[in-house]
């Protein structure tokens, strides 16, 4: 395998959790809910997936556990922000802080354990294609899922009736409510979907990216995923493009070190965060474009009139 293939493979592995978490958050935000707790749901997914894999020996059970943990945390978030109309920004922060705390406690007994890596599945015929085969068709299940989920979200949002309702709720919850759409129900489902995706992204971290448990191993990826949604102007396929761009930036530090480039490692490690800021500036400085793309009810609480 050539060096280019190796680099591209590592880009894909680094990008998959970003794509997954951002895709899930995109659906939640399209429904008008800003969940800043992605980082918390992701780290809970990572620790639960790792623990369940260690206990049962099967990384697939681990994946399920990761998704379940993401769902559970998303449910907490939904209950506070949708049922009790608590402030979404503050509740998202609470979710992240709680996730970092609970995962640290649950994961303590798994620190330093040898992980079980999720094995790739070769797709017959396609995996034999030169260059693209090993890159795209000899991957693990979570990678395939990430692409399927993005395609599914695209179809759902722009081709299905339910997706139209979800977008309507995100753009004007009052009008959607007046038309008889159950705003709260749709938002709950969207938030739960976002949580499941973030949990899956976390499972990828502890089962594929670095198959072990390290405290705070999500290292801000949940926040980068939030920025990716803005970068993608709330369009699913652009999340993939952005995710791969960020994946490339974040692994560039490893390769730069391998090539012996004399930049302190701390500066290279800060690249993804600096890149996020730069990208956010480029995307949002055009006030009108931002206004057109952003779901109009994003972050606004809804209490049905009775």
């Amino acid at each position, binding site marked *: 395998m050539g060096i280019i293939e190796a680099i591209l493979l590592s880009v894909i592995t680094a990008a998959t959790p970003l794509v997954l978490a951002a895709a899930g958050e995109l659906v939640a935000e399209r429904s008008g809910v800003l969940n800043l707790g992605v980082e918390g749901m992701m780290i809970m997914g990572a620790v639960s997936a790792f623990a369940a894999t260690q206990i049962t020996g099967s990384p697939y059970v681990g994946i399920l556990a990761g998704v379940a943990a993401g769902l559970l945390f998303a449910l907490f978030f939904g209950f506070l922000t949708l049922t009790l109309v608590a402030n979404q920004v503050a509740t998202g922060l609470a979710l992240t*802080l709680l*996730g970092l705390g609970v995962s640290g406690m649950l994961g303590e007994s798994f620190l330093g354990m040898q992980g079980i890596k999720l094995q790739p599945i070769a797709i017959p015929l396609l995996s034999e294609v030169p260059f693209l085969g090993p890159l795209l068709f000899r991957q693990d299940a979570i990678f395939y899922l990430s692409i399927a989920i993005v395609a599914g979200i695209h179809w759902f949002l722009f081709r299905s009736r339910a997706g139209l309702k979800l977008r309507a709720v995100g753009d004007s919850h009052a009008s959607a409510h007046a038309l008889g759409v159950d705003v709260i129900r749709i938002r709950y489902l969207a938030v739960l979907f976002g949580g499941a995706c973030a949990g899956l992204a976390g499972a990828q971290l502890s089962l594929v990216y670095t198959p072990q448990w390290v405290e705070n191993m999500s290292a801000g990826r949940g926040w980068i995923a939030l*920025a990716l949604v803005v970068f993608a102007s709330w369009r699913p396929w652009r999340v993939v493009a952005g995710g791969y761009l960020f994946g490339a930036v974040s692994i560039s530090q490893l390769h730069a070190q391998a090539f012996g480039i004399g930049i302190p490692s701390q500066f290279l490690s800060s690249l993804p965060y600096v890149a996020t800021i730069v990208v956010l500036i480029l995307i949002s400085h055009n006030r009108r474009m931002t206004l057109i793309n952003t779901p109009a009810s994003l972050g606004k609480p809804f209490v049905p009139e009775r």
Partner: protein
Amino acid sequence: MRIELEKRAKVSTLFSVLSPFIAFALTIVFGGIMFALLGKSPVTALYSFFVEPLIEVWSLHELAIKAAPLILIGVGLSVCFRSNNWNIGAEGQFIMGAIAGSILPVVFYDWQSPLVLPLMMLFGMIGGALFAAIPAFLKAHMNTNEILTSLMLVYVAQLFLDWLVRGPWRNPQGMNFPETRTFGPDAILPEMLASGRTHWGFAFAIIAAVLVWFMMRYTLRGFEITVLGQSERAGRFAGFSSRKMIWFSMLFSGALAGLAGIAEVSGAIQQLRPVISPGYGFTAIIVAFLGRLNPLGIVAAGLVLALTYLGGEAAQLSIGVSDKVTRVFQGLLLFFVLSCDTLIHYRIRLVWERFAVAKTDEAH
């Protein structure tokens, strides 16, 4: 069964006062359940977590030392949050304040003068404010979301500190440990009381809280903060500029976080290390909300959250649970604070499905 909210005609004063207490009580109950699940006696565990740190003089001093940065940062954040600017990068501003304030004792360590300490505090505030100026500029002039930029800058600040103490600022006589030289006697924030370690950082925190309380209550600036936070449109009609408010609130909270940073380093650690904060900048967000964004409430909330740090350490020693319990308690507390705040604006009703159906029929 369903939960329905009914908007109160006016804000409930009773629940504005009670809600932090209800939240704290719920946290204790859930904490007890958590300890029971961990196989510990809830009563002993809660006692060693919340009471033990309060019965000895030295640990009361530790409480004040930990509360000082939390209150300073929390008070600054309350101004930000009230004006609807979401600076969540106080952790980064804390670190940059500590670095800027340490220039004198680390680089110009030869210079000894009573001026060193005040200048360090000043540099710390400037360092924190300048670092907060980045998200402020980006929000005010480039329309960039301050939540994400201020948070990303935390990672940048942490890595920058890591590079400094392992690279250019490493102590030449330090056996290669990643730390700077220890500060000279002129650069150390003195202790306040004869009975223990509490340094002047705690006094700074109390003074800041009282000043901000006065500003919010009696000055035009305080009114401007509240109006712009509640409705930008209304603020514009009153002639207030939301752009200037972004600058003011971000720089102000950055300066206080920076002061907290240099006070912590100069008073408690007395050198720079790769990690100088157990997440004070993030915990201060909880402090601000638990204190209901009121500076005097924040003083009390800062002491409570400082207690969770000490409680974690105490519980680890006496009953052998992980000190990670601290973060869980802090997260739970914020969760319950936010849920209980609903009671201030809404009446909560439980609706049983059967009853709800009957009511709908009536309406037809």
